[in-house]
């Protein structure tokens, strides 16, 4: 019952980062931002627009992807040609840029909706999955594939990598038994292309960095 169609990588990660019952975000805004930033860069790698080599982003194709969020990031990369370090880009996009782009993209497809919470210090606006079931789709898909012993495709492998890097696995992979876990790790290791492996590694390092610097 892999009910849903696969969404762009960052959208899938955004949904996974939300509680399947209440729709609450499971990550701190800073960590969510790092995840969104890495996922958008990952989308550009999957679109064959950029390569990641030795910690640097190289643009190999400057044509728009047809997707507004990924294209916005590509445009920014083109504008700021003198900055190439992946870590800098992850940090920069994580300042809110990436989360914003992904929220807008998901809102357009009506998968998330704006939620306003009135609190003591004014209203807090956030985007939550419009149906709490939606949030569970991507993780369920990964678990189902793993359960059947099937191979994940590359975008889902990156998604699984980012789930581990952001610490979301403590929520969504807890039900995986040791064998399934071993299979997933094995696929990550053997099938994730080197560039994406590096991207996820950088994402994880950025998450650790944020914790050490008290920004998480």
């Amino acid at each position, binding site marked *: 019952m892999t009910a849903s169609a696969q969404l762009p990588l960052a959208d899938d990660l955004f949904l996974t980062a939300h509680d399947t019952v209440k729709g609450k*975000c*499971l*990550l*701190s805004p*800073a*960590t969510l931002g790092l995840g969104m930033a890495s996922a958008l860069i990952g989308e550009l790698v999957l679109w064959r627009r950029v390569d990641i080599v030795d*910690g640097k982003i190289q643009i190999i194709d400057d044509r728009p992807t047809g997707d507004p969020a990924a294209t916005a990031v590509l445009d*920014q990369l083109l504008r*700021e040609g*003198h*900055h190439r370090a992946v870590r*800098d*880009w992850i*940090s*920069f996009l994580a*300042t809110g840029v990436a989360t914003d782009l992904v929220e807008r993209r998901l809102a357009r497809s009506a998968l998330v909706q704006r939620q306003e919470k009135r609190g003591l210090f004014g209203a807090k606006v956030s985007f939550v999955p419009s149906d709490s079931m939606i949030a569970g789709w991507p993780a369920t898909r990964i678990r189902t594939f793993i359960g059947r012993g099937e191979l994940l495709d590359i975008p889902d492998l990156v998604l699984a*990598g980012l789930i*581990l*890097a*952001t*610490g*979301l*696995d*403590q*929520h969504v992979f807890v039900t995986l038994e040791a064998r399934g876990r*071993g299979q*997933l*790790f*094995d696929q*990550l*290791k053997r099938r994730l292309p080197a560039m994406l*492996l*590096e991207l*996820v*590694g*950088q994402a*994880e*390092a950025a*998450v*650790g*960095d*944020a*914790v*050490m*610097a*008290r*920004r*998480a």
Partner: protein
Amino acid sequence: MSSTATKPPQSQLSTALARDRLGVAAVVFFVMSAAAPLTVVAGVVPTGIAVTELTSISIAFVAVAVVLAIFAVGYVAMARHIANAGAFYAYIAQGIGRPFGVGASWVALLAYNMFQIAAYGGFGAIASPLFDKWFGLDISWWVLALVVWALTAVLGVRDVAVNGKVLATLLVAEIVVVFAFSIADLFSPNFTASSAPVDVTSLAGAGSGALLAMAITGFVGFEQSVVFSEESRDPRRTVPRATYIAISLIAVLYGFAAWAMISGAGPDVVGRAGTEGPDLFFNVASDQLGGRAVDLGYALFLTSLIAAMISFHNIIARYMFSLGREGVLPRAFGRTVPGTGAPKNGSLVQSALGLLVIIVYAIAGWDPLVNLFFWGGSGGGIGVLLLITLTSFAVIRYFVRHPEGEDFWHRLGAPVLGSVLLLVMSYLAISNIATLFGVEPGSKPTWVVPLAFGVLLVAGIAWALILRSSRPHVYAGIGLGARSASSVGGFSAALSSLDEKDKA
């Protein structure tokens, strides 16, 4: 101006990343807040005078400051070249070797925990008589210690930090109080400018090591300045300047305050320190300032101790997080609570350790001020001194192998000079440990503390050697910290877990 014409086009990325860059003042504040001035001046110094019966503490502060400043030359220089600056073991791992690095990381963990737990004892011992005086409540020290322990534990596990502005306000207030009370000492009726605190010959005399070990506790935290190497406005200037400023400020403030207190206390300062303890600092100034100012001083003493506890607890939890990510400690320490980013497991272990020590002291009936606060603090100080000494040698060895980009003074001159001085200081501190603790030479505390550090160092080295043969992937990343891309979070662990399976 012509410079505007050549300025590159405004980069959104650079602007966004530069926004939270820190200046000199911010770094100095951060370093000083870990140093907790009132705790040192009113807590450590009078207790130390009572325990060691030595009074030449001002000159010891100055001497330690000079040595640390020389050490800092190479230290901040190396910080520019390595990742994970701010943790001594990172320098040692990359300068001397990974096994020593792991050993040092474990020694540091013990030393930092000694400081943290010493603070619980100090709070209990100091607050207990105050609650009696202010509210007429007779509460045991350990009850109060457990209250602040619980507060720290709850805030720590939820990762609530004391707001930076609150910390800064407390720090400024503390410095003002220390300074004002010291000025008041000058006008005390008993005041006679004493030469004992600034007696240079004491640094060569018996008990000099005890004085130096006591003084070094006042500086712990200065090493954190380099944490901001990557986040400062100008790494080549901001961090070195902030480090030297913090070291000099600490030396001047503590040295002056100690001198004024000893001079104002009259002829029998050792006897008074013994009977009055931390009250000495407040009592000497009370004639001039009146009870209200003294109460304010006490209140600030307690709040700053609490703020320091919370900050230090967070530093320890993050330190364990970093070690967990590297795989030097169990990987569980490298996990955070996803929703808050709190390094929960390190915090829990620190709290458990603190609880255990408070309970043991309470049951055994040991003195919280001398046996916990002072022994813990100065014992931790010895641990930090040993770490600084090892780090200093690591700096020399690092620059011998990577001489690029630094001049002779930064690479070799200062590090060699600093290493020699630190080696002498370490020797003096260890050989004077009986004087420092105020016990008979050869009695239990004099060998338990150095032995504990030694055992941890050796155990750490052994663990690193085990890692080298069993998990080379983890071994390779030692000393690079959570910031390195080879760290062991969930994802990297997934990858490295297979390395091991593949080999089997």
